[in-house]
C-alpha cells in the first residue's frame, strides 16, 4: 500500500460524502415535484469524481456531462449554488438558465457540463490545445459515460489529441448502462479502454468504485500529461445507484428499475463510500467518531445549501434575453 497522509485520505472521504448527501437530499424534492428539471444523480459513482479531481489543481480544466454534480463539487463548486441552480434560482451557478445538466464554476476550473452525449469531449480537447499553444502545464479532463463511446466525435477527439500530443485525460465513467440500454446491447467490443490504444494512447481500466485506485491511475495520467507525453484514457467501472434520471428509473413513469435486482444488490455491496469508510477504520486511519463528524458537517452543508437556495429569488422574467450575447467592450 502506498503511503498517504491522513489528511489526504480524510479529504477523499469528505468529498465523496458531500456528493452523496447532496445527491440524496434531492430525492424527496424530485419525487414530490419541488424539483422540476431533469436531475441525473451521481450516487454510487462518487469515487470517480473524488479520485480524479484530487489530482487536479484549480488551474486544470474539467468538462462534464448530464451527470456532473459530483464533478462540480469535487472540483470545488459551491453546493449552495448547485442546489439553487437545480431549483432554477438566480443565485444558481448558471443563474437559473442551465439547471442540473448545465453547471459550471470557471474559477475552480469546472468549465461546464452539458448533456449532449459526447458533446463536451472535443471542448476538453480544445482546452488542452490552448494549454499547448500557451505552453502552460494545465491538464484538461473530459468526463463522459459509456454511452459516449457510440459517438463519432470521441474517435475524432482521440485521434486529434494523440496527434497533437495534448495534455488531456479521457475519463470514461462506465456505469454499464446508456440510459436504459445495457452496454452489451450497445457495443460490439465490451472493454472500452481498448478503443484508445489504436490511437497510441495509454489506456487503463480501473475499479471506479475504489477511490484510491482511481486516484492513483489519474495521478499517473496527469503527471504524464504534464510531462508532455500526450493524452491518457481511463475507463472507470462503476454503477449508478439511482435512476438514469431521477431517483429511480422512472422512464415512462413506471418507477421500476430496468436492471436486474441481483445486479443492483451486488453493486450496493460495492458502494464506494461504505467500502472506503471500512478501509479507513480497518487501517486505523480514522476513528468512527471522526468520520461521523465529517458526515454531520456534510449534512449541515447540505442543509445550508438548501437554505441558500430558498433565500434566492427566481430570475426576473424581464431578464429572459439577458446573457444571449456577452456585451462588447467599447472598441478603442
Amino acid at each position, binding site marked *: 500500500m502506498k503511503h498517504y497522509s491522513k489528511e489526504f485520505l480524510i479529504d477523499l472521504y469528505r468529498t465523496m460524502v458531500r456528493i452523496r448527501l447532496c445527491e440524496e437530499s434531492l430525492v424527496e424534492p424530485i419525487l414530490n415535484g419541488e424539483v422540476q428539471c431533469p436531475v441525473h444523480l451521481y450516487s454510487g459513482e462518487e469515487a470517480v469524481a473524488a479520485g480524479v479531481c484530487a489530482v487536479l489543481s484549480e488551474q486544470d480544466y474539467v468538462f462534464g456531462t448530464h451527470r456532473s454534480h459530483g464533478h462540480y463539487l469535487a472540483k470545488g463548486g459551491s453546493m449552495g449554488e448547485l442546489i439553487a441552480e437545480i431549483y432554477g434560482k438566480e443565485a444558481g451557478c448558471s443563474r437559473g438558465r442551465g439547471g442540473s445538466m448545465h453547471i459550471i464554476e470557471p474559477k475552480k476550473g469546472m468549465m*461546464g457540463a*452539458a448533456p*449532449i452525449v459526447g458533446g463536451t469531449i472535443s471542448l476538453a*480537447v480544445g482546452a488542452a490545445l490552448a494549454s499547448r499553444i500557451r505552453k502552460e502545464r494545465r491538464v484538461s479532463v473530459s468526463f463522459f459515460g459509456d454511452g459516449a463511446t457510440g459517438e463519432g466525435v470521441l474517435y*475524432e477527439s482521440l*485521434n*486529434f489529441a494523440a496527434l497533437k500530443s495534448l495534455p488531456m485525460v479521457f475519463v470514461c465513467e462506465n456505469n454499464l448502462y446508456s440510459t436504459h440500454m445495457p452496454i452489451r446491447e450497445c457495443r460490439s467490443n465490451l472493454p472500452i479502454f481498448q478503443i484508445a490504444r489504436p490511437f497510441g494512447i495509454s489506456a487503463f481500466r480501473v475499479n471506479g468504485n475504489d477511490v484510491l485506485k482511481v486516484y492513483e491511475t489519474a495521478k499517473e495520467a496527469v503527471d504524464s500529461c504534464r510531462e508532455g507525453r500526450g493524452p491518457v484514457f481511463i475507463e472507470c467501472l462503476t454503477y449508478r445507484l439511482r435512476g438514469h434520471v431521477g431517483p429511480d428509473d422512472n422512464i415512462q413513469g413506471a418507477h421500476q428499475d430496468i436492471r436486474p435486482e441481483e445486479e443492483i444488490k451486488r453493486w450496493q455491496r460495492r458502494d464506494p463510500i461504505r467500502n472506503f469508510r471500512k478501509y479507513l477504520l480497518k487501517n486505523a486511519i480514522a476513528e468512527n467518531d471522526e468520520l461521523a463528524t465529517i458526515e454531520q458537517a456534510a449534512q449541515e452543508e447540505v442543509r445550508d445549501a438548501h437554505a441558500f437556495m430558498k433565500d434566492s429569488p427566481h430570475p426576473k422574467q424581464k431578464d429572459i434575453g439577458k*446573457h*444571449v450575447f456577452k456585451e462588447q467592450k467599447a472598441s478603442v
Partner: protein
Amino acid sequence: MSSKSRKLQYSLAINEALHQMMGEDESVFLIGQGVKSPWYVGNTTKGLLERFGPERVIDTPVSENAVTGSAVGAALVGMRPIAVHPRMDFMLYAFDPIINEASNWHYMFGGKLPVPLVIWGIINRGGEQAAQHSQSLHAVFAHIPGLKVVMPSTPYDAKGLLIAAIKDENPVIYIDDRWLYEIEGEVPEETYEVPIGKAAVMREGKDVTIAANSYMVHAAMGAAEQLRKDGIEAEVLDMRTIKPIDKGLLAASARKTGRVVVADGGWKTCGVAAEISSIVSEEAFGCLKAPVVRVTVPDVPAPASSVLEKIYYPDSGKIVQAVKRTLSHGKEA
C-alpha cells in the same frame, strides 16, 4: 489617424486581417482543414504558417466535429480561435459544437463564460461542384440565438468584419464566397473594424430598394446600373451582417422607396430573404406600394451541369425583372 489605403483583392484583405490580428494578439489562432492549401482556402492564408508556425496555424485531419469543438473549447479558456471550413457544406458535421455548445454556452451558464470564436465558412458556388460543395447555409446559422452571422461583399468589409468578428466576445459565423475572392477594392493598411450589425448603402436611389448580401450585392449593383438606363433609381443595401440584421437602415430605405426586392444567394423557403421581407412588413407596412419580391436560388439542390447552373444562380437580369415586377404592381390590368 493616417489612413493609407490601396487596392487589394478580397482574399488578400482577409489575409491581411489574419496577419494583423495574429500579430497583435497571441490568443488568436487559425485551425481547420486545408489552412496550408491554396486549393482549399485560396491565398487567404498566404504567409501565415511561415510567420506564426504550426502551433497557431493548425491544418487538421478531416474531423470537422472534433476540430470545431476544439476551437470552441479553446475559446472557453480564453483563446480567440478562427476555425475555417473551406467548403461550408463540411460545417454540417460540426452542428453540435456550433449550435448546441458555442451558441448556447454564454446563455445556459448565466453569462459565466463567453465564447470569443470565429467560424469561417467558405461558399463555393458554381464550377459544377454540385450539391455538397456549394451550399449557402447562412440562414441556418442566422436562425440560432447566440450566433452572429456576417457576409462581407467588399474587400473593405472582408477585412473590417473579420477583425470585428475576431474581437467579438461571442461566436461569429463569418461567411465568404469564392466568387468574391478576386474582386478588388480600397482597403486601408491599418487595422479597423466594420461594426457587426450595420448594413451599408451601396448606392442611393428613390424608386426601389434592393437589399442584398455577399455576392448578390454585386449582382444588385449590376442590376441598378441597368435600371438607371431605364430611368429607374434603385437604392442598393448591403446587408453585410445577417444577424443581428440592421432593421433600422432596411426600414428607413423601405419607407423612402416603398418597394423592396431582396437578393439573397440562399434558398427561398425560410431563408434570409423571407426574414428581410418579414422585417419590411413589420416595420414599413404602411409605406409599401407593392409586395416584397424575393430573388433567391430556387428550392432545389445545386446541380452540377453548367447548363443548369446558369439558371440556378440568380444574376443581375433576374433582379432587374423582379424590380420591374414590383414597379408594375397594380398596373397590370
